[in-house]
C-alpha cells in the first residue's frame, strides 16, 4: 500500500487519528467480548465495539447505517442480549477452563491462520483507486439507499421482511411453552412428597445468622454444614450461592481491633485467633 497507489484518494489526518484511536478501542472491546468471564461484561464490551463501528460507518459516508447501527443494533439487539443474560443469570461466570482436549489450541491456530490469510488476501488484492461516496451520496445517503432498496433490491427487501416475520413467529413458538397437564395443587404436591418419603417437611429456609438472611446464602443444617437445598433452584443453577463461612471471623477480628484501640493495648497477635487450618498455612 504505497502512496502512489492511493494518489487517487487519501483521507484527512483527522480521520486517520480517529481510526487509530477508535480502531484500538474496537479491537480491545472485541477481545474483551471474547475473554470476559461474565456474559454481562462481554455484552457491554460488544456494545462498545458496535458503537465504535457505528462511528466508522459514519466516517465512511454510510450515515444511515451508522444511525441504524446505534439505534437498532446497540439499542435493541444488544438489549435483547442483556435481557437474556439476565434471564440466564447476570453474575453467572462460566470458567474459561477448556474441557475439550486441544480445542483451544486448534481454535487459536485456525484463528491466527485465518487472520493471516485474510491479511495476505487483502494485501495482494489490487485495491488501487478509491472513488469516495461523494457523488453516490450527492442527493442524500438515505435517498440513495432508498432508491436502491425500492428498485434494485426490492425483492430482497420483501424477502427479508418475510424473514423477519418468520423469525418473530419462530421465536414465539420456541419460547412459548404449552401447559400439557393441569398444574398440581399444593395438596397433591405434599401428598407426593409424603409418598416419595424425602423432604417430607417443607424445605429449610436460606440464610444464616441475623445478618445473612439473603436468599443466595445456603442455610446451615443442624450439623453446621450448609445445605444447597435452601437456596432457590435458579440461583443454584446459576451457581450464585454466596459463601459466608469466612465473614464471621473477620467480623470478630475487627471487633478485637476496635476494642484494643479503645483500651490502648498492644495489638494481640491475630494469629492466636486464627483458625487451626489458617494457622497451619
Amino acid at each position: 500500500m504505497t502512496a502512489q497507489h492511493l494518489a487517487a484518494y487519501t483521507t484527512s489526518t483527522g480521520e486517520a487519528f480517529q481510526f487509530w484511536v477508535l480502531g484500538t478501542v474496537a479491537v480491545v472491546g472485541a477481545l474483551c467480548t471474547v475473554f470476559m468471564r461474565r456474559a454481562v461484561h462481554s455484552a457491554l464490551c460488544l456494545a462498545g465495539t458496535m458503537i465504535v463501528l457505528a462511528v466508522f460507518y459514519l466516517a465512511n459516508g454510510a450515515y444511515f447505517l451508522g444511525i441504524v447501527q446505534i439505534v437498532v443494533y446497540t439499542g435493541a439487539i444488544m438489549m435483547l442480549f442483556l435481557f437474556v443474560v439476565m434471564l440466564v443469570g447476570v453474575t453467572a461466570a462460566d470458567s474459561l477452563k477448556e474441557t475439550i482436549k486441544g480445542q483451544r489450541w486448534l481454535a487459536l491456530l485456525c484463528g491466527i491462520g485465518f487472520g493471516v490469510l485474510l491479511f495476505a488476501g487483502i494485501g495482494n488484492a489490487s485495491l488501487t483507486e478509491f472513488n469516495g461516496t461523494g457523488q453516490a451520496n450527492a442527493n442524500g445517503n438515505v435517498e440513495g439507499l432508498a432508491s436502491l432498496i425500492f428498485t434494485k433490491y426490492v425483492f430482497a427487501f420483501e424477502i427479508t421482511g418475510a424473514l423477519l416475520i418468520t423469525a418473530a413467529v419462530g421465536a414465539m413458538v420456541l419460547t412459548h411453552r404449552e401447559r400439557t397437564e393441569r398444574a398440581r395443587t399444593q395438596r397433591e404436591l405434599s401428598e407426593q412428597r409424603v409418598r416419595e418419603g424425602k423432604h417430607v417437611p417443607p424445605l429449610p429456609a436460606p440464610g444464616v445468622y441475623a445478618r445473612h438472611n439473603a436468599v443466595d446464602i445456603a442455610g446451615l443444617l443442624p450439623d453446621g454444614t450448609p445445605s444447597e437445598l435452601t437456596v432457590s433452584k435458579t440461583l443454584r443453577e446459576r451457581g450464585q450461592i454466596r459463601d459466608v463461612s469466612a465473614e464471621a471471623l473477620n467480623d470478630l477480628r475487627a471487633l478485637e481491633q476496635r476494642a484494643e484501640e479503645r483500651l490502648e493495648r498492644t495489638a494481640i497477635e491475630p494469629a492466636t485467633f486464627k483458625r487451626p487450618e489458617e494457622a497451619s498455612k
Partner: protein
Amino acid sequence: MNPVNYLYLAALLFTIGATGVLIRRNAIVVFMCIELMLNACNLAFVAFSRMHGNLDGQIIAFFTMVVAAAEVVVGLAIIVSLFRTRHSASVDDASLMKL
C-alpha cells in the same frame, strides 16, 4: 492514511469473533461473537462501498443487519428454551449429536 485499513480492521475483528465462537462455551457469548463477526463484515462492506463509490455495499450491510436481527431473535429463543429444559446455557451440554 488509507481506507484499506478499515478492511484490515474488519479482518481482525472477524478473526477475533471467530476465535471467540470456538473457545467460549456460554451460548450467549458465542452468539455475541457471531454478532461481532457480522459487524466486521458490515464494516468491510461499507468500506467497499466507499471504494467503489456506490451504495450497494451499504445496502448489503443493511440486509446483513436485518438478517442478523432475525438470527439473533431465533437464536436467543433457542437458547432460552434450551436453558429452560436443561438449565444450562453451555453449548457443550448439548452434545447428543455424538454416536
